[in-house]
């Protein structure tokens, strides 16, 4: 598969602080990658560079063209972005209007807009929220709606910055499952950045970012075995991984088990 996103020798400074120095990353089309790091690792800056909000001086390509800081609109159709911690971003009183707005901006027909919204909300299991007022949504519901909105214009790449941070664990499970279905159907590329390693367990490939450098990379369960390194970098292991490693140390189980039911069944047959 071709690379949909290429970052070659990216350098970025903020004032005197160097954030990225000769940073490289390539992302295959249709893949689901995770980038985890602590609060000062540069995750959000990376998202801003990819979207073109910050200048990247012809070091980032999406498809076949460079991301240009002065022409953000060229790429905005291909990118879906969710900034999970920005919950004040709602403009309209009810959820349906909020969802229709970006499509109205693209001069879509009313019936097309309606179909698209119904399709996405059905997929994510949030059809009930459509008649609600945006102010009445809980933080978890707000994040669910934001995610649905980001996919309405059928982007090729979805950037999720802490997009699950306030979801209840039930909602998170539901949304993640739906997102995978959507990904398969439309061959969507997902880039997820987070401080919470738990959210990265279902990614195809995981990068650990620290001070603008990739320190470890690989399949999530392989990367998560580096527990001492990860805790030194300020990341906490997901509960099940932590428990697995500790039980493995006492030779009670073998390997990492992320499903609690299976672990309990394995321990006490």
């Amino acid at each position, binding site marked *: 598969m071709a690379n949909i996103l290429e970052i070659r020798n990216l350098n970025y400074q*903020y*004032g005197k*602080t160097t954030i990225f120095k000769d940073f490289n990353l390539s992302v295959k089309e249709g893949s689901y990658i995770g980038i985890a*790091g*602590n*609060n*000062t690792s540069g995750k959000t800056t990376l998202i801003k560079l990819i979207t073109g909000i910050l200048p990247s001086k012809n070091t980032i390509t999406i498809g076949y063209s460079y991301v240009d800081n002065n022409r953000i609109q060229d790429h905005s159709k291909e990118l879906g972005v969710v900034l*999970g*911690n*920005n*919950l*004040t971003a709602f403009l309209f009183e009810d959820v349906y209007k909020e969802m229709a707005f970006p499509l109205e901006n693209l001069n879509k027909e009313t019936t097309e807009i309606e179909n698209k919204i119904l399709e996405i909300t059905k997929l994510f299991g949030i059809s009930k929220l459509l008649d609600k007022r945006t*102010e*009445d949504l*809980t*933080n*978890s519901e707000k994040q669910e709606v934001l995610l649905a909105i980001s996919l309405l214009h059928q982007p090729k790449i979805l950037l999720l910055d*802490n997009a699950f*941070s*306030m*979801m*209840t*664990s*039930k909602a998170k499970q539901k949304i993640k499952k739906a997102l995978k279905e959507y990904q398969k159907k439309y061959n969507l590329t997902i880039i997820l950045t987070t*401080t919470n390693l738990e959210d990265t367990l279902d990614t195809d490939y995981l990068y650990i970012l620290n001070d603008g450098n990739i320190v470890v990379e690989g399949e999530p369960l392989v990367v998560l075995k580096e527990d001492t390194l990860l*805790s030194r970098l*300020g*990341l*906490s292991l997901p*509960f*099940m991984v*932590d*428990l697995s490693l*500790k*039980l493995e140390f*006492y030779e*009670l189980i073998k390997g990492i088990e992320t499903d*609690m*039911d299976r*672990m*309990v*069944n394995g*321990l*006490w047959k």
Partner: protein
Amino acid sequence: MEITLKNVGYRYKNKKILDHINLKIEHNCITGITGEYKTLLCEIIDATKLDYSGSVVVGDALLNKENLKWIRKEVCLIQQNPQNQFFTNNVKEEIAFLISRLAYQPKDINKKMEQALEMVGLNKSYLDKEIKTLSSGEKKLLQVAIGLIYNPNIIIFDEPFVELDFINQRKLLKLIKVLKEKYQKTIIITSNNCNLLYEITDDIVILKKGRILAADNTVKVYQNMTLLKENDIDMPDLIKFTMLAKQKKVKLSFHRDIRDLIKDVYKHV
């Protein structure tokens, strides 16, 4: 300072949002609030919203328009998004502005500024920084530092953990414990992260559909399986594991620390 809510209700356009809230938040305790409309409840307690029915008593004073000035000094709300709470661009200006509003002016303003930062574990070099260059974790700590300048008795943290990485979470948890134990503050934390709530809070309040579902000692509430299951409330991982083991007729006890759980598992395998 304790807080008593008597029959508090909140309506918006004739829709009941909160109803029959009877609650006592104990002095010098850490109380967690989880579920729907947590933020609204916090805004009622800190008198941002006054158009509710019923009564709220903080300490000995009934909340009303006349004692707003007093309540602003006694109750400090640390908002979820730090950006909403800063007035200026610079750490020094921000702190200096708030100190200038104090009734008794300190002799040495510089020292007072350094002390404010020191309390939350930031050193004085932060005084020269611009707020937008701080990471999310540092912004959260700065928010707390600013909140503490007025020496409030009640501190409300609205979703404090969502943006923080592991190290900053630990820092904040430690700070919260110090505020409780050394400075006898009354602390309220809202969060959907049941694992963190289980770890830090003394009491917990679960809101559902605008009513109080449970308000009691944290351990008691989280060990009430029937309540949690019937109402679809997220269970802390430690509790869930013990519960699954109990279903297998294994005599595991409930634990609050993963290390104790491992020891217990070791005994029973």
